[in-house]
C-alpha cells in the first residue's frame, strides 16, 4: 500500500503544464515530495490527539481514530534495543533498505564510485557491504563521499575475487518511541512505564511503587533508555514509529535525453492511499511557489483547507 510516485509526478506535471504554466524537474519533485510527505505524516499525531478527545462512532470506516490509526499503522514497527551499560540504545533502523547498489569489481582496482547511492543516504544511514554475498566488517573497506575503497584489491580470476560488491544502506528511521516491553523467558511481556528523572527518585523511594521486574519503568534521555530495576539488561523490545522513506522519482535518460521513469530504482510515497489527493494538492502548493504561479498556490491552498475542514468537522 503506497502511493505510486510516478502517478503523483505525472498528475502534478499535468496540472502544472496545463496552459503552459511551467515545469517541475524530477529533482525538484523529489525534494518537494519528501517535504510534503513529512508534513502530512507529522499531522497524523496531532490529529489523533484531537480526535481521541471527540466521541467517535463505531460504524465501519467512519471512526476517525481508527482511520488515522490505519494511516499511522504503515509506519509502526518493532525493534530490539542494544544494552550498553547502563542503558539501552534505541533501535535506529527498522531494516528498510533506503538504497542499494551492486558493483562489479575489476581485478587490482580498489576504488569505485557509487552510481545510485547518494552521499546523503550514506551519511544518514547504516551501510552494509557484502563481498560475493558475505557481510564484511568495516576493516574490509572504507567509504568517503560517494566512493568505496576496498582494503584489499580484488584478485584476478576467473573468477575475480571478490567478483561483486553489494552495498546496502538502511535508513536510520527511528521517529517516535511507542511502547517499551520487557520479556523474560515464557513470562508474559510487561510494559515499561516512562517516567521522568524527578519522578524516578520518588518512585524508587516508595516501597509501594518501587520498580520491579513485574512493573519496570524507564527513563528516556538522549536517545537512550535507562531501565529500572537495573537488573534488567536484556529482553527489552520497543514499538516505535519509523520515518517514511524519502520518495524518489528516478529516471534514465532516453534517446532524446528525455527523462524516462525508472520504476525499479524509484521509491514510492509510503503514505496511505487515501492521502493521494492531499499529497498532490500540497505538492502543487509548493510547485506554485517554485514556478511563481499565484493561481496554483491559491487553488491548491483552498482545496487543502477544504479537505482539512471536512476531516475535522
Amino acid at each position, binding site marked *: 500500500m503506497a502511493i505510486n510516485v510516478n502517478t503523483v509526478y505525472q498528475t502534478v506535471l499535468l496540472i502544472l503544464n496545463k496552459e503552459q504554466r511551467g515545469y517541475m524537474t524530477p529533482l525538484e519533485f523529489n525534494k518537494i515530495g519528501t517535504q510534503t510527505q513529512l508534513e502530512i505524516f507529522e499531522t497524523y499525531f496531532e490529529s489523533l490527539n484531537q480526535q481521541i478527545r471527540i466521541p467517535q462512532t463505531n460504524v465501519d470506516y467512519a471512526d476517525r*481514530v481508527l482511520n488515522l490509526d490505519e494511516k499511522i499503522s504503515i509506519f509502526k514497527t518493532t525493534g530490539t534495543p542494544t544494552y550498553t551499560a547502563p542503558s539501552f540504545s534505541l533501535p535506529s533502523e527498522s531494516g528498510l533498505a533506503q538504497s542499494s547498489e551492486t558493483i562489479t569489481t575489476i581485478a587490482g582496482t580498489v576504488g569505485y564510485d557509487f552510481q545510485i547511492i547518494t552521499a546523503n543516504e550514506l551519511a544518514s544511514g547504516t551501510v552494509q557491504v557484502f563481498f560475493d554475498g558475505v557481510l564484511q566488517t568495516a576493516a574490509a573497506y572504507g567509504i568517503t563521499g560517494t566512493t568505496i575503497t576496498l582494503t584489499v584489491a580484488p584478485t584476478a580470476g576467473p573468477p575475480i575475487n571478490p567478483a561483486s560488491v553489494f552495498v546496502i544502506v538502511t535508513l536510520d528511521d527511528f521517529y517516535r518511541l511507542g511502547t517499551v516491553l520487557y520479556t523474560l*523467558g*515464557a513470562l508474559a511481556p510487561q510494559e515499561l*512505564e516512562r517516567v521522568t528523572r524527578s*519522578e524516578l527518585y520518588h518512585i524508587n523511594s516508595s516501597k*509501594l*511503587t518501587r520498580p520491579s521486574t513485574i*512493573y519496570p*519503568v524507564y527513563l528516556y534521555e538522549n536517545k537512550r533508555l535507562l531501565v529500572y530495576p537495573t537488573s534488567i539488561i536484556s529482553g527489552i523490545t520497543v514499538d516505535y514509529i519509523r520515518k517514511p522513506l524519502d520518495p524518489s522519482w528516478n529516471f534514465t535518460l532516453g534517446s532524446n535525453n528525455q527523462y524516462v521513469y525508472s520504476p525499479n530504482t524509484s521509491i514510492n510515497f509510503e503514505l496511505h492511499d487515501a492521502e493521494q489527493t492531499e499529497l498532490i494538492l500540497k505538492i502543487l502548493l509548493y510547485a506554485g511557489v517554485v514556478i511563481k504561479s499565484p493561481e496554483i498556490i491559491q487553488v491548491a491552498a483552498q482545496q487543502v483547507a477544504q479537505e482539512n475542514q471536512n476531516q475535522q468537522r
Partner: protein
Amino acid sequence: MATPNGGLINETNAQYYAGTQQFIIAATAVNQTFTSTFDTLLSVGTGNYSDPGTNGFNLNNFKVNTSTDGSTWAELTPASTDFDAVGTPLSAGGLATVNIAANANILGGSIFVLVNKLTGFVYGTITTINGANTLLTLDKVLPAAGITNNTALSVRRIQPWTMVGNIITVSQSLTINTYLQIEMRDATVDDIHGSYEYTRLNDVIDNFLIAYVGAGKLIPSVKRTDVIFHARRGLQEFSYDTLKSTRSQELQIPSSLSLIIPQDYVNYVKLSWVDGMGVLHPIYPTNNLNQSPYETLAQDQLGHPIQDSNAINTEVSSTMDAAWNATDPRLISGGFQNNLDNANVLNRGYMDGALGQRYGLDPVTSQKNGWFKIDERKGTFNFTSNLSGRIILLEYISDGNAYDLDSRIPKLAEEALYAHMVHAILSVSSNVQEYVVRRFKQERSAKLRNAKIRLSNIKLDQIVQVMRGKSKWLKF
C-alpha cells in the same frame, strides 16, 4: 473433569492437585526446553541451584524429575547424570591430569566434574580431554595419593538444568519417548491449593488499566505507578478490617515470657493458649493492669535523668516489668488453686464447684487464662508467668503487601478494590467534578460494605444452630 479451555483456570488437574506438569520427550536431543504453565512462577536460588548440595537449591520452589516410563520418577540432579569411567593406568598425585580408559562420552569445557564412584570425592572439573579420549585435564591437581589403577570413576554433569523465565533447559541428551516432570515443592503446592479464591494484585492492576482508564472514560489517562500505589494502599486498608486473611503462628512461651512480634505483624486479632485437648483459651491484654515502659531512665537523687559520656540518657532495667513477671496472675483473678488444664467439662473434682467463690468479683480480671502485653520498645509480646511453657496461638493481621504471595485479594472483594481505586484516583485528579467524586465515594462505600458482608461468611444453617439455644431453660 474439565480441562483448561479458555476459562480462568489455566492449570490442569495434575498441576493443581499433585503440583506436577509432565512432558513427553518428542525427540532425542540436547538442550531441550520445557515451559512451565503453572500459575505460580518458577523460582530458583543463586549459584548452581540444580545441585542439592548448594544453598541455592533449597530456595527453588520446584524440582525437575525424569522417568523412562512416566510412573517412576528420579530427580534430575548432578549425581543422577553420572556415567562411569575407569582410571587406568594410575595417575600421579600433584598433577592435574588423569589417565582413563578411552571414553568418547566425556567432554571438557567446565561442563563435567570427575568423581570417585566409591567415595564420592570430587577430583575437579574436567577442562579438556585429549584426542584419544584417554587423558583428562582437570582444573586442579590430584591429591598426593593420586588415582590408583582401575579406580572406578564417575563423570558428572555440573548443572543438569537451568531455568529462566519459566523455561527449563536440560543440557543433557534426553531420549525420545521418555518423560520429564516439573514438580512443585510441598510448600508451593500448599500455596497453589485454594488460590482460585483470590485474584492477584497484578491482575487487578492490569484489569483496572484496561477497563477504567482510556480515552472516553472518566479516567482518560493515569500513570501506572499511581494505579499500583492506590491498589496497594487499598489492599492495606482492606486487610485491616475487611479481608478475612488473618495470619497465625503456633508458638511456645519461653521462660523469658516474651515473644518477638512477627515480621509482617500489623495488629493482633487474638492470642490464645492451647490446652491438652487442643482447645483454645483466650489470653487477654493487660490493659490497665500493667504496661511496659518505653523508656526506663536512670535517675539521680533529684529525679533527673542521668546521661552517659555521649550525652545520651542512660537506662536501667524496668522494675515494673520485673514485678509483673514475678506476679502470680491467680492473685489478681482470684482463680482456683486448682488450675484447669483443659476444656474437658467432666474433669472436675468434687469440691471444685465451691472453690473460688467470693464477693466483689471484678469481671475484667476474673479469668484464669493469663494476660499479655506488648512491649513497643522491644517489639515483643510479654506474657504472665502462668503461661510459661504453654503453647499459644497468635492470630494477627498483616497489610497484604509483606510478601509477593500476599499481594492478592479475595474475589469477593475484588469489585470493592476497583471502586476504591477509581475513587482514590478521581479524588486527586484535577478537573473532575465534585459530584463525580462523591458518586464514586458512595460506590466505594457500598461495595466495601458488600464485600464485608460476603467475607463475614454468614451461613444460615450456622445461625440456626446458634439460635437453637435461644429457648433453652436456664436453671439457677
